[in-house]
């Protein structure tokens, strides 16, 4: 405890100092926000990469991905019999259910799903948050390029594997 009124003076000093600094307010609708890289705004779909493996739909914790497909026969010239291939009919994500965990994007083995930082897709009706294939495809244009690899981080698994001498090569053969 110091002099009486010391606390008041300290408070006055703090507010005066704050007043001389610039306000932290971001004027959002007027000025677009600078989002951090890898922001989770909306999920984009690259249709051509989807093989209807259903991994995303099965891993989704709240089952908000709807996939419908049919099988097509592809006749490969020279092959003994035609091959079967999955064809995507419908791919939809219900963003009123989605909890933005990103598991679908993690598990997709063929890079068909991506995070996009776009977030301004609020709707007046909850049902309109069900984004069908076309809408999900449109988000692809907003997906940013992946961030560069951290120069001081560990090398990627593939890189490390490529550097390792192949078994049986020179130096091996113990």
């Amino acid at each position: 405890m110091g002099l009486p009124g010391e606390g008041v003076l300290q408070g006055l000093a703090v507010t005066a100092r704050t007043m001389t600094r610039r306000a932290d307010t971001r004027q959002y609708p007027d000025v677009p926000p600078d989002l951090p890289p890898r922001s989770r705004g909306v999920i984009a779909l690259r249709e051509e990469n989807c093989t209807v493996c259903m991994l995303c739909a099965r891993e989704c914790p709240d089952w908000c991905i709807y996939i419908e497909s049919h099988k097509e026969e592809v006749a490969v010239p020279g092959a003994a019999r035609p091959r079967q291939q999955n064809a995507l009919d419908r791919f939809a994500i219900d963003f009123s259910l989605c909890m933005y965990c990103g598991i679908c994007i993690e598990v997709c083995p063929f890079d068909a799903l991506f995070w996009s930082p776009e977030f301004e897709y609020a709707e007046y009706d909850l049902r309109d948050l069900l984004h069908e294939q076309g809408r999900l495809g449109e988000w692809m244009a907003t997906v940013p390029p992946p961030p560069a690899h951290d120069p001081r981080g560990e090398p990627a698994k593939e890189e490390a594997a490529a550097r390792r001498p192949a078994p049986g090569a020179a130096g091996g053969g113990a």
Partner: protein
Amino acid sequence: MSLAELGLRVALVVVAFLTLPLVVGQAEHKVMAHMQGRLGPMYAGGFHGWAQLLADGVKFAQKEDLIPRGADGPVFRLAPAVALLPYLVVLLVIPLGPGDLVAQPLDAGLFFALAVLGVGVVSLLMAAWASANKYSLLGGLRGAAQLLGYELPLVLSAASVAMAAGTLSLPGIVAAWRPWWLLWQLPALLVFFTAALAEIRRPPFDMPIADSELVFGYLTEYTGLRFALFLLAEYVGIVVVAALTTVLFLGGWKGPFADASLGWLWTLLKVFAVSFAVIWLRVATPRLREDQLQRLCWQALVPVALGQLVLTAAVVTAT
């Protein structure tokens, strides 16, 4: 003084009465925001929200004029006017500059101003009692205790200046003021400023309103224009308190140069500086508890004011 001149003076006072509080209110919006690292109003009027208070006024005017069923109608309706009028009347006697730059030079101007300011407690009690609401009543009782208590240091510290100047006339006090009074009357200045803050129920002395405990104290039942009038009274109160502090303790129209021609400018500058201090204190201090409020008044302000009176009397008789 001819009738036309009188009308002109009263009209000018009314204009000041309507514009200065808006300037202070807007300054409060912006200063408080920046002191808290915000921007404050940015949209109304286009440029940095300059028209925010006008927009607020339009909004208040559109609201339903609600009077609770149990309320005492006439008293309830009259209270905002009683809150507002004393401040308007006080503005009449505050000198803006030397010579004739005062709406109504009264010989007992200081006495008149303090007496009229005392009417504030009546409006508060009217609003509190007529609302038929327990929160209003609690707020009103707190307010009555606060206002009556702080009246004493307010009057004592003002009396010190009056004694030093040897006159009760506000222009007379400014004319007698010397810069070294700033030091001599410093305790009185601090006591007067603090007590005046409590008189207009500004934070940190907003115990009668205390929105976290009493909803909104004696203003709980007020809506629309009547509520706006109470708010306006608060901001006119800031102007009046700042003007009285300026005139009594800060030398009114006396500035570094050109007192005769630029006196009004010095007065206004000082008024705005004191208003800024009022806003600043609001941002930086938490609300006083009821017992702290009374202790500050009776154990700190009153003894200091009495000591200042003794000091003033000693210096006046010695010279």
